[in-house]
């Protein structure tokens, strides 16, 4: 009884769920914008890493390695607290999106690169021999085949980005975690935190299940 009152206090949950839902909406906004931006930037990074002028290729590689080495929380704090010294002041939302998508782009780029490199050389040669331009080679031949390979790891990356949105609470972004901690302070009861945890799980569990299903399906299709 005591434990239920402390961690799963129904009146407290009823009182605070509008706050949590509002936080969920903010979390989804940060996550979706970061995922989309990361995908686009990541695709260009992958192409640069593979096909650009050697200097640009080197830069892309440095970017990818550095951004995979830095903790997102550190990057976020640098963006939010340090960049203003350079005159660049981003809102909490923009700071969170910037940190998440810059890092996500680095991981996405590696996923795309692996996907493109998995396409047999013969596909490139057949396309070139037909006179397809590099753009059509990518858009009509390579990427449609690579997409099947990259969907499971990309979905995994989306899950990670959604989880990392919780870091936005440190720059005062009213996301799900922030709302939950505030609700906890307000009601002097930790139930909102449990509520938030359950909402995260409800949001991401289907995606996790989807990755497993996709991986199994593509593994079968390969045979």
């Amino acid at each position: 009884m005591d434990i239920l009152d402390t961690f799963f206090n129904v009146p407290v949950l009823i009182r605070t769920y509008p706050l949590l839902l509002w936080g969920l909406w903010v979390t989804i906004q940060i996550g979706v914008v970061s995922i989309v931006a990361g995908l686009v930037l990541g695709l260009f990074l992958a192409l640069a890493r593979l096909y650009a002028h050697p200097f640009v290729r080197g830069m892309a590689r440095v970017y990818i390695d550095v951004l995979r080495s830095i903790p997102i929380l550190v990057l976020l704090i640098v963006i939010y607290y340090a960049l203003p010294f350079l005159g660049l002041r981003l809102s909490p939302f923009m700071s969170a999106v910037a940190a998440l998508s810059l890092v996500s782009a680095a991981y996405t780029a590696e996923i795309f690169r692996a996907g493109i490199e998995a396409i047999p050389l013969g596909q490139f040669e057949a396309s070139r021999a037909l006179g397809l331009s590099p753009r059509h080679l990518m858009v009509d031949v390579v990427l449609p085949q690579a997409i099947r390979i990259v969907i499971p790891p990309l979905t995994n990356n989306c899950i990670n980005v959604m989880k990392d949105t919780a870091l936005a609470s440190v720059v005062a972004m009213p996301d799900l975690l922030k709302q939950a901690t505030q609700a906890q302070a307000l009601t002097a009861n930790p139930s909102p935190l449990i509520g938030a945890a359950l909402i995260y799980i409800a949001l991401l569990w289907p995606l996790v299940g989807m990755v497993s299903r996709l991986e199994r399906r593509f593994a079968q299709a390969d045979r």
Partner: protein
Amino acid sequence: MAPSFIHIRDLRKRYGSYTALHGIDLDIAEGEVVCVIGPSGSGKSTLIRCINLLEEFEPGSTVILDGTPVKRGRALEKVRAEVGMVFQSFNLFPHLTVLRNVMLAPMRVRGLDARQAEGRARELLARVGIEGQADKYPGKLSGGQQQRVAIARALAMEPKVMLFDEPTSALDPEMVGEVLDVMRLLARSGVTMVVVTHEMGFARQVADRVIFMDGGRVVEEGTPSQIFDAAREERTRNFLGAVLNH
């Protein structure tokens, strides 16, 4: 004198310190069917892959196709569009139907609309005898059928020359005939062809000229009967003795 239809002078190709082609001179006339034979590693594939610049050759070498130099740069895709190529491993696009495989390049490179491209594709699929498979994916076809699709795909660009790199080597024996039949038909209809092959029967019957390569050089060339019945070079005779008697 105007250069020949395909004009190759001093074609050299190195891989690092290894020289795959030691200065090949070759002239091919419009409508001619040339078969290239020779032992493994002699540079046959490298030679034909230089004609559409899938391999980059050394500076100073010349390849001219119907008056247009084959070289890197803006015109490269234009030149490649004029050269059809059929690979040993087919290299069809597995995510597109047979019909779409044949339609893709005419639409993207030649700017045909879908209706025109489909008409041309169906015509060509009929010509290679697989009009019934148009809506299947390549993975569902036999090797022989896939290779015939690959031939139709190359022909759809109305190329000036068709290059074949051992088009039947990856096929089960019972499917070799159907692909060679299609190639025979093409040869008769006046398509300029350069064929790397181990099918000596085909070379003897279809080629206007046979080229024997060894060690990155053209050792000997001539009509099929000059090569197969009366080779002058010892190396040619040894090679033919080995492949014909096994």
